């Protein structure tokens, strides 16, 4: 019906497609799935730890990056084997509900209040945990722009806790100075840089963040930011490679990885302090 020559082009076209079709995935042996937060990944900490992890444990770890709330959900559904996040209250609730069977402290970083260099709310001389609440009050009083993650992440929940300690419910104030992005840390930092707005961020991500615009750290050490690692309950999710997961958690909280966390630097700064160093 059709001359062979005419079919040639069509056949080449199909062959290109066929070659592009991937081999079926291998079942059985699988990599460990670690759900963690943007601050751990974007800071470059994981890239720093990865060579040691491979050399000392031989584990292959697939890292899925989400906000703390979404990362915990991956643990609840059993889609992640290990969860490495930063929201102590949410972590305790996760454990109490039986979604996790083992929880260990890993490290701590700091939350910072970042804002425009011109310091319109006059908060730059405030510092430390006692400075955070007064700083937020001044931002609210002067109605200078503040952007919030608004995504139930660890950073978002920490920000809401700080507002509570300042005695302010920013969402109840109908002013347009408080804006929720509903996005990750990076996207929210980009928005803050474009708007010259304040925001609460975390030292690891901030130190690594490139597109700062006119933003600078106004209140350092506004709040401690502890990270915990949890094993998702293998009794509820039998597919979880429990031995590998425990091996990973033992390694992450072991002496070598803890030292590597303390040694990790970005531009000469140490954004993370290991749990081992905090409680010798």
């Amino acid at each position, binding site marked *: 019906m059709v*001359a062979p020559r005419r079919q040639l082009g069509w056949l080449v076209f199909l062959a290109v497609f066929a070659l592009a079709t991937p081999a079926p995935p291998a079942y059985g042996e699988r*990599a460990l799935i670690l759900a963690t937060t943007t601050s751990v990944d974007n800071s470059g900490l994981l890239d720093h730890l990865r060579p040691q992890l491979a050399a000392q444990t031989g584990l292959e770890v697939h890292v*899925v990056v989400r906000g703390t709330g979404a990362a915990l959900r991956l643990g609840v559904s059993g889609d992640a084997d290990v969860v490495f996040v930063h929201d102590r209250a949410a972590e305790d609730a996760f454990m109490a509900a039986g979604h996790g069977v083992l929880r260990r402290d890993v490290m701590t970083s700091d939350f910072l209040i970042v804002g425009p260099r011109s310091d319109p709310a006059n908060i730059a001389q405030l510092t430390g945990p006692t400075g955070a609440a007064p700083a937020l009050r001044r931002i609210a009083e002067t109605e200078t722009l503040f952007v919030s993650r608004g995504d139930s992440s660890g950073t978002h929940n920490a920000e809401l806790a700080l507002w509570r300690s300042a005695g302010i419910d920013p969402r109840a104030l109908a002013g347009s100075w408080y804006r929720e992005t509903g996005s990750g840390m990076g996207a929210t930092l980009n928005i803050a840089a474009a708007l010259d707005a304040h925001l609460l961020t975390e030292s690891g991500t901030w130190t690594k*963040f490139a597109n700062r615009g006119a933003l600078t750290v106004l209140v350092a050490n506004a709040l401690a930011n502890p990270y915990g690692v949890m094993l998702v309950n293998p009794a509820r999710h039998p597919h979880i490679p429990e031995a590998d997961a425990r091996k990973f958690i033992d390694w992450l909280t072991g002496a070598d990885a803890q030292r590597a966390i303390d040694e990790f630097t970005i531009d000469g700064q140490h954004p993370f302090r290991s749990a081992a160093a905090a409680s010798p």
Partner: protein
Amino acid sequence: MGEFGQALMNAATLIVSFDGDFLGIVGLSLRVSLSAVLIACIIGFPLGALLALSRFPGRGAAVAVLNALMGLPPVVVGLIVFLLLSRAGPFGVLGLLFTPTAMIIAQTILVTPIIAALTRQTVTDLWAEYGEQLRSLGATRADTIATLLWDGRFSLTTIVLAGFGRAIAEVGAVMIVGGNIDNVTRVMTTAIALETSKGDLEMALGLGIVLLVLALAVNGVSQAIAAGASRASQQAVRA
């Protein structure tokens, strides 16, 4: 201008350097999207043709639904596939979440309605032209579909490219079901989203330029093939 200049430099450096990680990302992008388009064609061509030629109650509604599905938001498709493939979902036992296979499934769902809906339109037009002839020759339904699809192959090429464009450009679905895992499920669009979140806008834009070049290359190759095939078929007609 500084950012765009830097982005162009980054794009050129990425292409010239043949960096292994970068080539892996490009390769996976092509593998996932081309596979999805291939599967979508296998489903969409016959489905579209059948819908063009069949008469059944509710056909108008089926066509409307199919056309509407062309506008499926990738994030929604990603979410649905995520829930289906999640360990807590009906297909959880397969362990497909956060694999390239999951990404292919999601993109196939996105692309199939485009292929099917546009094929239906092409075949409807061809049927209006040749239907009488085919009927008088006593062609069966299968013969008719095969003949009309073959006759419309140059229009179908454009349809395939439209589907490919949709697949290679979307980020919402692959981000959710793939997880953007380094060296495993990271594709061009999720890498762009990641670099943007790190605030490295020049690198993100550089990757974006590479993505455009890639789409251009795929379109160029298929256009050249189609042109060659068209010339060959005209020569065959003359001979």
